[in-house]
């Protein structure tokens, strides 16, 4: 399925068992947690508890999980507005994310940013951005800064397939390649190719649907990966991250994935795709794929799986409760944070 569009050659790098299976259990737990989180967030949206736009990551979890599993605690990352899972995977407490969605003072950004603008700088999450593609220049400059400061920290930049048609994509990616020649741009661009930008499928917005290859023409090494398989993504991520850290050169990966839900909570009818396609992709749900794998390897049994689901349910319920009960930001917050010196 991954090779449907653009004749993608997907690297196969899975190892059937081994040490990374046990270490994947916490990621399985996080993926279950975020899925539940997204479901409940949507419900809260329908109840009018969450406003604005709400973009869910359901179906794409293995991509961010695989990469965030592969970086160090002091590495950093940027993403777009579909960002809840990225924060939670990285350790941001779900209740602080939910409180942000509820617009509460206890949210990660004190309720000022909302769903699209999650930030958790101590954990390396530099946002959460709403203008498609516009975080790509930021991430590229941030990667330069990390090297300039003499560290071996690296930067991840998640982006959508739709973002690749913007100048916000091409301009910094070209610069990253130039800077990379001097080892000054330790960044991994991770395309979450979920087939659609809102209602526009990849093949309606560009002729070259092998998206990874577009990085090649800027001089950046690249590959595709099956984005539904956590173990595959993680293995690729570990290899890529090590190399980028060592060389200071950019690298790009296109993860073939699918969003099982609407573009945003308002996208109910989805006239741009048919039910069959969604059903087909449900067979490749990344959580089930990982679950099966862990099951088969004997790392998880049914009871443990049930417990993990129950735990997720409880955590998210607690997050909802926390968000619900948290205070709104006080009026004094309105003028705060506009600038540092004023």
């Amino acid at each position, binding site marked *: 399925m991954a090779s449907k569009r653009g004749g993608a050659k997907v690297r196969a790098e899975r190892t059937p068992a081994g040490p990374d299976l046990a270490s994947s259990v916490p990621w399985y737990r996080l993926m279950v947690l975020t899925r539940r989180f997204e479901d409940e967030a949507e419900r809260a949206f329908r109840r009018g508890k969450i*406003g*604005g*736009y709400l973009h869910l990551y359901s179906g794409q979890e293995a991509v961010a999980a695989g990469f965030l599993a592969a970086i160090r605690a002091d590495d950093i990352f940027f993403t777009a507005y579909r960002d809840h899972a990225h924060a939670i995977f990285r350790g941001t407490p779900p209740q602080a994310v939910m409180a*942000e969605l509820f*617009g*509460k003072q206890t949210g990660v*950004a004190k*309720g*000022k*940013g*909302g769903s*699209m*603008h999650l930030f958790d700088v101590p954990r390396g999450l530099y946002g959460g*951005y*709403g*203008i*498609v*593609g516009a975080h790509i220049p930021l991430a590229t400059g941030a990667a330069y800064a990390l090297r300039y400061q003499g560290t071996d920290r690296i930067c991840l930049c998640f982006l959508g397939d*739709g*973002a690749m*048609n*913007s*100048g*916000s994509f091409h301009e910094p990616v070209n610069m990253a390649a130039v800077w990379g020649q001097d080892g000054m741009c330790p960044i991994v661009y991770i395309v979450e190719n979920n087939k659609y*930008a*809102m*209602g*526009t499928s990849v093949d*309606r*917005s*560009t002729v070259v649907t092998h998206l990874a290859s577009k990085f090649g023409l800027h001089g950046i090494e690249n590959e595709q990966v099956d984005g539904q398989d956590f173990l595959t993504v993680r293995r690729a991520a570990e290899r890529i991250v090590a190399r980028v850290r060592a060389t200071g050169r950019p690298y790009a990966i296109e993860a073939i994935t699918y969003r099982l839900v609407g573009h945003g909570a308002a996208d109910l009818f989805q*006239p*741009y795709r048919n039910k069959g396609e969604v059903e087909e992709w449900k067979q490749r749900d990344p959580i089930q794929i990982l679950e099966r794998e862990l099951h088969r390897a004997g790392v998880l049994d049914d009871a443990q799986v049930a417990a993990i689901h129950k735990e997720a349910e409880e955590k998210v319920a607690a997050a909802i409760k926390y968000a619900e009960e948290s205070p*709104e*930001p006080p*009026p004094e*917050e*309105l*003028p705060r944070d*506009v600038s540092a010196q004023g």
Partner: protein
Amino acid sequence: MAQVLTFRDALRATLMEEMDRNPAVVLLGEDIGVYQGTFRITADFLTRFGPKRVIDTPISELGFVGAAVGMAMLGLRPVVEVMTWNFSLLAADQILNNAAKLRYFSGGQVNVPLVIRGPNGAGVQLSAQHSQSLEALYAHFPGLWVVAPATPADARGLLLTALRGKDPVVFLENAALYGAKGEVPDGDAPIPFGQAEIMRRGHDVTIISYSRMVHLALTAAEQLAQTGIEAEVINLRTLRPLDRETLIRSVRRTHRAVVVQEQWRPFGAAAEIAAVIYEGAFDLLDAPVERVTGADVPMPYARNLELLALPHERDIVAAVQRTLYRQ
């Protein structure tokens, strides 16, 4: 005769009629076709007019706005939907350096009959990057017309003018108004640019606004009437050109003015409107012109803060009272 339509349907119907009438009209924008339009202004248009006239674009604001300028130069009449005006900042160079100026620097050799339309201003909890009202920015540039309809009738009449003129038009809608209903005259009645409408007569003070804020002004005026203050309410309809005459004539009669805008006060539209009033009615003003504006902060997400950041009827009432020294 007239019929009652929503703002959305007034736009839809006008666009559709004009497309039926004039094959040179083509639409470009993100998700206007297959997806049926984010705000469904163009729902069913793809089926009706086909993919050559209803062009779903990639996420390339600079590219497709520029391409539309090129189409306009060749005699098409493109209508670009920016999914929201926030994204137009990516196309600012094409709008401000090409569309607005190229008639001039070509010595009048080309026209740019282009309409760029979409929702402007704050929605509900869309936060800082998606809650901007950009009229002051665009209205600064000669070569553009800047239109901000308040009613379904405005929407139709001004869109007709936009679609039949020869110049680039920045057409600023407001998502909160799409569902609003109003009488729309039948038939072919374009509203000329630069013609404000007096929505309510009054002699104590003039309240001036445009787009969504006009409705707040009207509500405020009703409230004021209950305290014996009769406010005149002016709907500007276009920011460029500005109908100085109607403005000034009214203020010279009422001696007091309140200007209402949604966006940040510094260097906002109300400053220009106030300056024009002072210049035309200085000797007859009994109080400084009041500006009612949004808070000078990027829009916060939390609903309670957002409400604090936006202008409200009560702010207009208070401003009016200040012009009457009642506070």
